[in-house]
């Protein structure tokens, strides 16, 4: 099975070396692809010097457009599975094994790494908790199954999903929406418990002030997706 790890990176020169070393240590069999999303720092040079494949976007497309570039590459080169992995260091490379095992069982087309399946290991603030609860309740109702970590960007996709994402991938806040799109396309979604770290460098794209706006926008997008043909 040939695996491609897709790392969308926007201004991640500080955290990228650690992330890639972690991947090379724990998943030596996988190919690593960094998609430089028009960074203003030396992300692209840093990635090239680390000896991984790099796709450089001519300008910033946002996380959805960058991730889709990786999926289009995976589709062109005929990869069997693709792992979405953050460039900021919050995902743990040794957990990829759990995602791949979930995928190999064959019952799901995409496996999402969830922080919340092992209770008590992750303690977010009250408002985060509320947001997480709303998302997971709404999504569980739409998908007809229990999903706990809807915003997780740590996922493994099989060939069917690679081909689907190469054509359709939501733009602004793609994790939640893409689950709805996959469900409507008749794909099966699975979750496995994973551990995540706190960020090692850079800044999250989601600041506390934007959180409420983020929630409303994502929910709206999800409902619009349901209306689309």
């Amino acid at each position, binding site marked *: 099975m040939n695996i491609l790890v897709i790392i969308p990176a926007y201004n991640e020169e500080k955290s990228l070396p650690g992330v890639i070393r972690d991947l090379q240590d724990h998943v030596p069999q996988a190919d690593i692809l960094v*998609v430089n999303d028009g960074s203003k720092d030396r992300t692209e040079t840093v990635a090239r010097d680390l000896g991984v*494949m*790099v*796709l*450089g*976007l*001519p*300008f910033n*497309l946002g996380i959805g*457009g960058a991730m*889709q*570039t990786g999926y*289009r*590459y995976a589709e*062109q080169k005929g990869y069997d599975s693709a792992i979405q992995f953050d460039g900021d260091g919050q995902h743990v490379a040794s957990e990829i094994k759990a995602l791949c095992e979930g995928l190999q069982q064959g019952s799901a087309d995409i496996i999402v790494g969830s922080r919340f399946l092992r209770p008590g290991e992750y303690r977010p603030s009250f408002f985060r908790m509320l947001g997480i609860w709303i998302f997971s309740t709404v999504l569980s109702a739409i998908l007809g199954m229990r999903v706990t970590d809807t915003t997780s960007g740590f996922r493994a996709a099989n060939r069917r999903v690679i081909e689907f994402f190469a054509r359709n991938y939501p*733009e602004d806040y793609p994790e939640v929406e893409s689950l709805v799109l996959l469900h409507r396309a008749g794909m099966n979604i699975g979750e496995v418990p994973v551990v995540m770290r706190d960020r090692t460098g850079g800044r999250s794209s989601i600041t506390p002030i934007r959180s409420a706006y983020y929630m409303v926008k994502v929910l709206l997008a999800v409902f619009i997706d349901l209306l689309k043909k």
Partner: protein
Amino acid sequence: MDIVKILAIAGSATLLFLVLELIRRGRLKERYSLLWLFSSVVLLILSLSRSLLEFFSKLIGIYYPPSLLFLIAFIFLLLITLHFSAVISGLSDKNKRLAQEVALLRHSLDELSRRHGSAQDGP
């Protein structure tokens, strides 16, 4: 002839002239100018003919006929901006796909030239 009428005629005639001029100079594509042309012609006709304006105002219960001109202009503006939003959405999608294509092509170009370069190291 009252001032409102003169202003209305001057306004819609200027609009029509501007639209035609932009099309003539190739600064406005025909595809995007249809709504503009149509709206300026309608406004001009209604400004010229007081009786037509009064007929339509009575029909929908507007007491002061010139305000029908505002209503029509407003509706056209709504339609035009909506049309632009749709056009921009399509363009941004194409823009995204182009950017992705550039990244993918540049990568295969790099790969190709590296392979070619190492084969040609001799001479």
